[in-house]
């Protein structure tokens, strides 16, 4: 019987294949269910399944290293000592590092990565989860340290009359602009336009999706398409390699303001139980530590208004 570390290494090397197999069998499972809704949130479950293998730290480490490298450049004396000690550990793990290098250690090519932060909601039992979407408006309105607040909400959706759901990401209207990307064709979402209640339904497709499903059609922008049987305008194609914030296979992006139109009955905006991935830009000169202190006041207000949110122990 192979030891556990070998199985874990095997998983790491064949990660994509394992993930594909898992997705296949979860899809198959849902097909067989009478009430597929009871299956649970696909993306969350897949992330949890991936976490079971214990490599999440490696993904996180990749991002942390980028941040650490910046700090180290400022204090070279410390860098030399630390580099000596680290190289022992790195040498031992070299096989793993080389395999991961291509996909994980490449820093996210977003604009000004240092001022981009992610929020999690930590409960007393030490677990962290995403932030209730309902809290986002309060955070956005009441803080004085953030220059922008971004959200992303993964979902599955059906494109035209396709038979397999694809990953649709409902994002804040500033998503592309704040990450520093314009469209490869057409336009990306705009604040003040796509976040308005009367905005026309709009979809941006990934470059890969445009190539593979739309045959790189050069005049695709402006066309009416259907997502979950809802008509919308394809307003743009994202640039090739537009970054995800984690392993990202998003096929289409939709403004989160339009989530009710595309997925009727969803409760993201109404329920304190529905959470969102929440990111923000720190204002110039504000350190993450200072931002945390300043935001504590916002959360204290929230805790007075919704005490039960801060006491859940599940």
């Amino acid at each position, binding site marked *: *019987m*192979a030891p*556990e570390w070998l*199985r*874990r290494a095997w*998983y790491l090397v064949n990660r994509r294949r394992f993930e594909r*197999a*898992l997705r*296949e*069998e*979860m*899809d*198959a*499972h849902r*097909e*067989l*269910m009478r009430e597929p809704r*009871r*299956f*649970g*949130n*696909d993306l969350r*479950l*897949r992330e*949890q*399944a*991936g*976490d*079971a*293998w*214990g490599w999440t730290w490696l993904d996180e480490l990749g991002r942390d290293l980028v941040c650490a490298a910046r700090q180290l450049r400022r204090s070279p004396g410390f860098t030399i000592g630390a580099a000596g000690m680290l190289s022992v550990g790195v040498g031992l793990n070299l096989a793993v590092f080389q395999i991961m290098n291509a996909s994980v250690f490449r820093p996210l090519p977003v604009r000004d990565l240092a001022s981009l932060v992610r929020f999690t909601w930590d409960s007393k039992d030490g677990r962290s989860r995403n932030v209730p979407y309902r809290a986002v408006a309060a955070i956005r309105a009441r803080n004085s340290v953030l220059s922008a607040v971004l959200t992303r909400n993964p979902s599955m959706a059906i494109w035209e009359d396709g038979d397999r759901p694809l990953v649709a990401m409902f994002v804040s209207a500033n998503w592309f602009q704040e990450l520093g990307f314009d469209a490869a064709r057409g336009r990306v979402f705009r604040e003040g336009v796509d976040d308005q209640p009367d905005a026309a339904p709009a979809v941006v497709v990934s470059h890969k999706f445009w190539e593979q499903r739309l045959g790189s059609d050069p005049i695709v922008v402006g066309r009416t398409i259907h997502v979950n049987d809802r008509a919308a305008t394809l307003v743009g194609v994202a640039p090739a390699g537009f970054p995800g914030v984690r392993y990202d296979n998003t096929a289409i992006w939709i403004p989160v303001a339009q989530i009710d139109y595309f997925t009727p009955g969803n409760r993201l905006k109404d329920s304190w139980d529905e959470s969102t991935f929440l990111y923000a830009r720190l204002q110039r000169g504000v350190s993450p530590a200072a931002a945390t202190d300043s935001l504590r006041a916002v959360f204290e207000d929230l805790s007075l208004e919704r005490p039960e949110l801060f006491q859940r122990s599940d």
Partner: protein
Amino acid sequence: MLILRVLTNEPLHGYAIAQRIHLLSKEQLSVEEGSLYPALQKLLMKGWVKATPAVSETGRQVREYRLTASGKKQLDSEVDEYRRVTHAISTLLSNA
């Protein structure tokens, strides 16, 4: 423990495991079915189950999970432990 238990008789794929747990528990236990998959990954990592490719009733490519020898041992020790704890609790409740 429940997953290992339902796999003692025969190898099953994910949907069948969920059905079996639901039925065997006299429909008392009904969890979010998808949460089965993170649990299965853990069992795979520990080497307590092995996966082989199979085809579902709808003709989809799935994996069938089979209990390994070390999985059997793990189940036995978990069942022992469970019995020990429930026995202790019920003794406590009836004597307190």
